[in-house]
């Protein structure tokens, strides 16, 4: 019934072979491979290891786990695996980086003056939810507007909530919400869902979920908290006000590139460009997982990226070794 999660360790030393920024699946996988290659490895994570997989309940398409595995459990296993091979995991937010020189400098929130230095850096900061950008969204964030299912779903017991989006995340989270909410309406701009077939089947069969297709949320209204939303039917061009207790928004991702925008090359949508060895345009700097320009953003591709980057870093460090 209960689950108890443990967290990271403190760092004693400031010099590493590899520093991995971000402890999602991509970063953890890089830590496992770098640790096994006996590189002195530090992984920095600002909230909780696992990244986005802690924001969902079950992962059921990660090979090797024939029964669905809790995102948090999978994260914990990856973390322990990385630690077993000697990678250090430290909880701190990276606040700035200097990546262009041979000696890379990483500044973290709790030790502002002394940077951590390393020879290679693996960028694994992932992505975060995209905003809807409608009126009321910002005002009511935290007051009925949410982007985190596991965090906030339990607060909507017996309530009526709107979910915006039609992809995997939107549908998974709608299914999770039905454990608490009385009713969930999924608002999607197209006439059919984009989510994987099996998820669609489950949502369609769930009596607590209904769908509002060809529609978008135009405005979020309320007083102290969300009271209603304006939903516009795109075919009819007409809006109507729907009373609700909350609105969960799952309309895609934005890469977490604030730190490195000026350090490495990114594409027009802000995702970091790499080659197939995960190398960015800066020597000794790699990018992995959801932060990278690629076509499938999943755990299985994130961990693959991590492994490749760690091996590329290993080659880079050993072939340029002044030691």
């Amino acid at each position, binding site marked *: 019934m209960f689950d108890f999660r443990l*967290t990271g360790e403190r760092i004693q030393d400031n010099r590493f072979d590899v520093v991995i920024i971000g402890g999602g699946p991509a970063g953890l996988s890089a830590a496992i491979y770098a640790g096994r290659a006996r590189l002195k490895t530090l992984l920095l994570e600002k909230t909780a290891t696992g990244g986005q997989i*802690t924001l969902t309940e079950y992962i059921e398409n990660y090979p090797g786990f024939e029964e669905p595995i809790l995102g948090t459990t999978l994260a914990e296993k990856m973390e322990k695996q990385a630690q077993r091979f000697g990678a250090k995991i430290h909880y701190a937010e990276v606040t700035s980086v200097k990546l262009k020189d041979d000696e890379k400098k990483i500044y973290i929130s709790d030790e502002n003056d002394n940077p951590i230095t390393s020879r290679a850096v693996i960028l694994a900061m992932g992505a975060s939810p995209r905003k809807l950008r409608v009126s009321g969204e910002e005002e009511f964030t*935290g007051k009925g507007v949410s982007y985190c299912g596991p965090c*906030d779903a339990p*607060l909507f017991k017996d309530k009526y909530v709107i979910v915006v989006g039609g992809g995997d995340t939107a549908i998974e989270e709608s299914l999770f919400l039905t454990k608490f909410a009385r009713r969930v309406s999924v608002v999607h701009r197209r006439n059919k869902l984009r989510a994987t077939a099996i998820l669609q089947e489950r949502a369609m069969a769930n009596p607590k979920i209904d769908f509002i297709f060809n529609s978008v949320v135009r405005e979020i209204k309320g007083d102290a908290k969300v009271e209603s939303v304006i939903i516009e039917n795109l075919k009819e061009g007409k809006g109507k006000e729907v009373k609700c207790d909350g609105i969960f928004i799952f309309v895609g991702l934005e890469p977490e590139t604030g730190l490195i925008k000026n350090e490495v090359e990114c594409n027009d949508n802000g995702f970091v460009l790499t080659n197939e060895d995960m190398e960015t345009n800066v020597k000794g700097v790699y990018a992995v997982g959801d932060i990278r320009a690629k076509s499938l953003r999943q755990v299985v591709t994130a961990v693959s990226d991590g492994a490749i980057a760690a091996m590329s870093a290993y080659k880079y460090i050993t072939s340029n070794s002044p030691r």
Partner: protein
Amino acid sequence: MALLSKEDSEFLKNKFEEELVRKITLVYFGKESSDLVLPTEDSTECRYCEATHQLMEELAGLSENIEANAFDIDDEEAEKYGIRMIPAIVPLVEGEDKGIRYYGIPSGYEFGGMIETIIQLSSGEGSRLSSESLDALSKLSIPISIDVFITPTCPYCPTAVMTAHRMAMASEYVTSNMIEANEFPVLSTQNNVYSVPHITVNGRYAFVGALPEREFVEGVLNAVMDTIRDKD
């Protein structure tokens, strides 16, 4: 059956062995039998009292530097620590109350946070807040009570709880309360908790989110600005 897995117990035992310096007392408040009507505004039964008590005993069993002390909510001790709801935990360091409170079971992500708090308290290293934060806190001249509402499945929440706890470690005017929102639905509804972490100060809304330390401290102090006066 034990709540903590063998593996986790082993891990914690070693960690405590390495890191604990000062003695920690986990003062627990609950109710023996769970079907009694309770004097709290919220639950009429204390669903998680038994588990919380057990968890404290298990932690105490892992280190000589941790002891658990259990009281009934009707005992005088409850008043002494200003305990308003159960289950509640007050960690003491060498018998000293640093103003840290847990209301509801610290499970899920909060468990790791609680372990971190125990270690930090025991290390005697102080709050580890930045000098700017300490400066801002030194201007406090009235007691403030920070409530951090959380859910155990929220990965961001322990960061917020830790920052509030550190403020309590740094200033005798600050009390920091972790409140598990699910276990106290009436209080959560009264406070319009729709996203976690949700932070209130002296009962007033402050902000939502695990803000970085600087913004967090600012947000807390701003919420009660009009009632705080400069010492000098």
